[in-house]
């Protein structure tokens, strides 16, 4: 990954994060969150994690951001939070994360760094040896003209060989979450008249 692109996307991610905290309008915050996540997705793609990067954009920018904005609109919060931030919390909120960041920096600096090793066509061809010849992964890795890193296939293989049970659990979790959301919104609808 070119350093330039790395710095660009890192800047996007960090700037998006700072804006998310700094904007008073929640809608602006949501949009800067998307900016930050786009930057992150760029970093992911730069790390050859194409699948994760795309999913990051699809899920966060596509689904979650819409959900946030939708809820903000639904609750009509545009004009909320005209009040200024309290100085005590602002000070705390800057000092504590700063300490944390410094600590992380300290830890990172004491470690040997690992240099980036690009994935070349040679590595792909060498890697192809360890996969069955008639499989899609092998075909993609050892493609004569355009060998590619089939990371979606590799993740899929990983999930379905080593993470079968967690996958089931995640499925159950999604189901429970769906039911939970339905129940939550139904209950409130029912109890609402008695509340007011």
């Amino acid at each position: 990954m070119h350093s330039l692109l790395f710095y660009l996307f890192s800047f996007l991610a960090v700037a998006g994060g700072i804006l998310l905290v700094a904007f008073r309008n929640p809608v602006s915050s949501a949009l800067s969150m998307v900016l930050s996540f786009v930057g992150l997705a760029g970093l992911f793609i730069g790390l050859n994690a194409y699948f994760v990067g795309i999913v990051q954009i699809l899920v966060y920018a596509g689904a979650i951001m819409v959900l946030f904005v939708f809820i903000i609109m639904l609750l009509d919060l545009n004009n909320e939070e005209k009040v200024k931030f309290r100085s005590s919390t602002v000070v705390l909120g800057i000092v504590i994360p700063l300490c944390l960041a410094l600590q992380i920096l300290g830890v990172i600096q004491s470690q040997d760094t690992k240099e980036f090793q690009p994935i070349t066509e040679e590595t792909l061809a060498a890697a192809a040896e360890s996969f069955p010849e008639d499989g899609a992964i092998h075909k993609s890795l050892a493609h004569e003209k355009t060998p590619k890193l089939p990371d979606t296939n590799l993740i899929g293989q990983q999930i379905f060989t080593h993470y079968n049970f967690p996958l089931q659990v995640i499925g159950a979790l999604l189901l429970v979450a769906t039911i939970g959301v339905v129940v939550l919104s139904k209950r409130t609808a029912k109890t609402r008249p008695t509340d007011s």
Partner: protein
Amino acid sequence: METLAWIILGLPLLSAVTIHLGLKSSKNLSAYLATGSAFITLVLALIILGPETENRAFEWATIGDLKIEIGLQLDSFAKGMMIVVTGVGFLVHLFSLAYMKDDNAKERYFCGLSLFMFSMTGIVLASNFLMMFMFWELVGLSSYLLIGHWYEKDSAADAAKKAFLTNRIGDFGFMIGILMLWGITGTYTFDGLSEFFDGAHPKVLVPSVTILSVSILLIFMGAMGKSAQAPLHVWLPDAMEGPTPVSALIHAATMVAAGVFMMARLYTSIGVDTIGHLWGMDTIAWIGAITSLLAALMATQQDDIKKILAYSTLSQLGYMVMAVGLLDPDAGMFHLFTHAWFKALLFLGSGAVIYACHHEQNIWKMGGLQKKMPITFLTFGIGTLALCGFPFTAGFFSKEQILESAAHSKQWGLFAVAALVACLTTFYMLRLFFIAFLGKNRSDKANHAKEVGPLMFVPLVILAVLALLSGYQFLADNLSPLYNHEGFHVGAPFIASISALVVGGFLSWKLYFNAESDPLANNGLFKIFRNKFYIDELYAKLVGYAQDTVAAIVHFIDELVINGLIVGGFSRAAGGIGRIFGRLQSGNLQGYAALFGLGVILVIYLTVFVS
């Protein structure tokens, strides 16, 4: 083969669970389900009968060097015992269908029976002591549930509690014994034990002879609880508060025999020769003999038909324990085998009588039943003869073997006790028989008695046949858990048992034939027998006194030290600290988040930077 054995073990559990979870409302279905599962297990037990088969154990838990295994020991010993358990079990289920027909908690009853069958099967098939101990406790639980089946009656609830608590005393010893045995040998499987002791010269064991003896005596404590040996025998007569089929199954044929079974298992695993070198093994024989004698004496003065049978069970169990103590587990198990059939027969017969007489249990209010209930009369008669050891019935052969082993080991004291008990057995059983079945009707209830239906008398007939034949070689060789056929010969034991039979029979006939009331009721000595040697009262006094003393001390400590200083002090301290920290609970999310962040920084600092 192995799969079949697992099915035998699992099926009753499945039935119990199904009934408990799903069939609470359909009483009849649950009854048929339990009976069906009992029948299938009987058939499977007959199928797997035969030579020892290979058994694989699987690991259940591993704690350091200790590997706890769940496995089945499928040798002829266990398989023979399975026949007894499933055979009697199935007949009792069948009998219960009729006996409990109108009970309003039928599904609970059959659930309990299934649970019991499961636990008993577990004891019999267990391949190691730990597994046996677990099922041992389960058996205690199911026995508790079934004794207390009519828990609305205080006496039934109390009896259930008494049985459970008394058993706990024995089980405690059992557990310590198992642990000690494990400490000595490093194994707790039966195979491992026999491997350990096999070929080991007794001298090798000298340093640990004492510990080994103690551990075996402690394990025997478990048997004392389950098999109701003196001084832990007090629960068994009270356990008769449960439904009569339960008494037949649990408190006559199978569960109470588990102690004897377990001891025989222990003896065969360790090896009778090795046991012979330990000290204190005579204690076991003497406890058996004393139980046997005490119980027989008490039985002579009971009026409740089930109580008489209960004491006779105690006495016969004493016999078996005595045989085991005489290093002849074969004889003990053979007696267990024959006794299971005829005692189940007697209990079921008494159940039929009680059922016919509208829950009248006092024998003095029966009488003249031979005309009203001919089949019951006949089968009960056969059972009585077998129990008395009448020549050529099953009981004769097995009792003979026990007397033989007493004579063989030159324990003439034990031999005399055994012969005296044989005489007393004849005496009280014929007393029961004469009063309940012969003579005139002594009450309306007995007058209106009718013969019971086929569902009840079919099990009686089957059991009667077995009571007659199970002592013979062709049956015993194939079915009995341990059977050592010795050629029958006329010797001291034979003469003793025949004369005991004659004397006991004559006395009983003289005193009770056509008697209207008990001629011995006012005799001082017999009053003691009637009141069970006042053992229950003694226990009550002892326990009460000890309890009061301990309670007074505990009360003092509780009031002053615990309540005043510890609890009070802590509660005051907690209250004070709570008030201080309560102020920190601002309910402000941002404050919490900031504190949380500070905490994270602190943790990182302490873990990463300080060290």
